[in-house]
């Protein structure tokens, strides 16, 4: 057996029973329950890094949306355009922050059960929403250009 197996076996040392009593696993701990087995710690760490990467993406979207709404000069003729671009970015950031946690939980569960990892919704959600917002920004810039230079 390779040494790589040792972190996984260490991982099973802290079972939920130790913290919550036998048969009362803490649902928030994502700890294994009956019929599940703590995976190799490297898979758990990789899942955690994926969560952190999505969290940083979410944070960047929130701050990007705030920057668009607060720092961009108003579009001539379309003063509300900054808000129409910024608010969806902020909302997308919040949605991704929540979804990446639920996906981390689902992936951790699948790893413990030895099942295939669930397909992530986040890349499609991010790509689709960014594309729509970019299209919206282009239309608003065009409308602004037309209305301010008749």
């Amino acid at each position, binding site marked *: *057996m*390779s*040494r*790589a*197996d*040792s*972190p996984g076996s*260490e*991982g099973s*040392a*802290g*079972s*939920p029973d130790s*913290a919550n009593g036998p048969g009362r696993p*803490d649902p*928030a*701990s*994502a*700890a*294994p329950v009956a019929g599940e087995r*703590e995976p*190799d*710690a*490297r898979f*758990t*760490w*990789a899942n*955690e*890094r994926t*969560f*952190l*990467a999505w*969290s*940083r993406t*979410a*944070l*960047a979207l*929130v*701050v990007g*949306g*705030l920057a668009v*709404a*607060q720092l961009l000069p108003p579009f001539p003729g379309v*003063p*509300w355009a900054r*808000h129409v671009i*910024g*608010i969806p970015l*902020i*909302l997308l*950031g*919040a949605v991704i*922050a*929540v979804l*990446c*946690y639920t996906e*981390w*939980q689902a992936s*951790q569960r699948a790893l*413990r059960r030895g099942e295939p990892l669930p397909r992530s919704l986040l890349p499609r959600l991010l790509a689709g929403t960014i594309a729509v917002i970019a299209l919206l920004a282009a239309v608003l810039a065009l409308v602004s250009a037309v209305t301010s230079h008749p």
Partner: protein
Amino acid sequence: MSDPGGTDEIEDVDPGLAGARTELAWTRTAISFAAVGVVLLRHHPLVGIPVLALSLLVWELGRLRGNPATRRARHLQLITAGITGIALAALVITLATGW
């Protein structure tokens, strides 16, 4: 995992590298929170100060070792709550400014 041919990957020799990469990911996340906190501090100190405090907490959490699966869920929930809180504050700030 173990390869009879002796061509183990480096992490089979030292699995701690995965832990080190994860610790670095936590550090990057803490720095992201700190950067957002500094930006917010200039114009909205009431939001910026808690975000800076959160960045310190995230920094410290990234350095905790032990059983990753059982200890991490609450730590990750904190990050999710932090980002949704910042998003809510950003929404209020944006809606409060003129259209």
